């Protein structure tokens, strides 16, 4: 049986899944609690039993801002904190909608898309 800490680290595994179009998060086998962003063991309590599970992709906007940017540099864009249905919170962008129209409490759904040349977990209105 391989050692829990052997092999690629959680950031590497997360990015490998993302590159293949999968949004995966971690879950503690013993407590059932989910983790995002990826860690070596359960933050705060230390259970070394995190396993990868598909994220539902369902989320709710917890906080939002419009980053003002000149049109010649790409224009305004949204940055938001999303509460995932599984519990953890993550930073992302809500896309496919005017950045100023994103509201706290809005239900959103994850999608994987290119952001500045790399795959990223983005959200759009559910």
């Amino acid at each position: 049986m391989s050692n829990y800490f052997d092999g690629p680290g959680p950031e590497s595994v997360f990015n490998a899944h993302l590159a293949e179009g999968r949004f995966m998060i971690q879950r503690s086998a013993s407590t059932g609690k989910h983790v995002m962003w990826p860690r070596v063991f359960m933050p705060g309590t230390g259970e070394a039993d995190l396993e990868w599970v598909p994220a539902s992709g369902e989320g709710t906007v917890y906080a939002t801002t419009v980053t003002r940017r000149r049109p010649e540099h790409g224009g305004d864009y949204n940055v938001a904190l999303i509460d995932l249905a599984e519990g953890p919170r993550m930073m992302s962008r809500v896309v496919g909608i005017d950045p100023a129209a994103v509201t706290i409490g809005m239900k959103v759904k994850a999608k994987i898309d290119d952001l500045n040349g790399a795959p990223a977990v983005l959200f759009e209105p559910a």
Partner: protein
Amino acid sequence: MSDLKHLRGKAACVGAATAGCGEAPGRNSTELMAEAVYRALADADIPLNQVDGLFAATAVHSMAAMSLAEHLGIQPKYSNGSNIGGSSFLAHALDAAMALEAGLIDVAVIAYGSNQRTAGGFKSVSEPMPFEAQYEPRNPITAYALATSRYMHEFGATRENLAEVAVAARQWAQLNPEAFMRDPLTIEEVVKARPISDPLGKLDCCLVTDGAAAVVMTRPDRAKDGSHKPVYLLGAAMAHHHRMISEMPDLTMTAARDSGPRAFAMAGYGPRDMDTVQIYDAFTINTILFLEDLGFCKKGEGKDFVGGGRIAPGGALPVNTNGGGLSCVHPGMYGLFVMIEAIRQARGTCGERQIDGANLCLAHGNGGVLSSQVTTIWGTEETL
């Protein structure tokens, strides 16, 4: 077993100075720090070769204490260059008090300097935040804008509520010859200023200035040798709950809820005893959150508490009497300036903005993205 009271009054500030505030073209951050150290030691009437403890952090040095010691030409017995953001210097004061009380050192100097304004803007050696950087948050502004959005959502705060903080700071700045922005400012001007990261506009954000500061601390036994009355460190405590804004448990509650009560417990005083309150106002939301979290009003009440001139000159609670990071000076990391204003008020040397009988002064530092919180309480000899 922990003993919160042990350090109370075991160290005092005997020298304090600023240098290059506003614009200091052609002078680099280490040179500005060195100038502030020179001025603070002159203020304390202590020669450079007696400095045996050195504490420093900047946004552009990874080993600030060593770089500064070398520029000063001193060989400290103890140094600390740890960086927890803009609150580092208040944490350094706590550490300096420990090193002084333990007998490791006799004279501690805490310093900061930056030439960010004339060198082309804020730069930092800070590491990128994993799983945030790709979304291009324009930190720190993005993080504080997110917190502001949440606070407005939960408590019904308005941009006008936030603007009260900026206007009060400007009114104080008008009484401070050292302040960078001293023109009159109205609520309407703050609300209508160019949006930077909604809901924050340009005038909700701190200044971008140059500036340096230094503080000299000793044990009480020699603190009375100087030309100023010593200002004693009565209480100090730190806390941090997160590094990235996405990991902050509740965007409307900061770790000042932990640092504040421990600092007050060490000092043996409470919020109502404070004669002046100096808090790190990088953005207008800061003042509201910290007044709540430090116990000056209840959670959600800060939006109204800051209105009606309460925290402005002539108000019931003098807050950020130098004009704050919003109107006085903000050279990237502002914590040491917060501390110096508390010390100057307790000394009674603040001129037109001096608060009569300012014997107990709170200085609260914030670092990162509402991340590290350090609360200090300073008092005159009568408060020991």
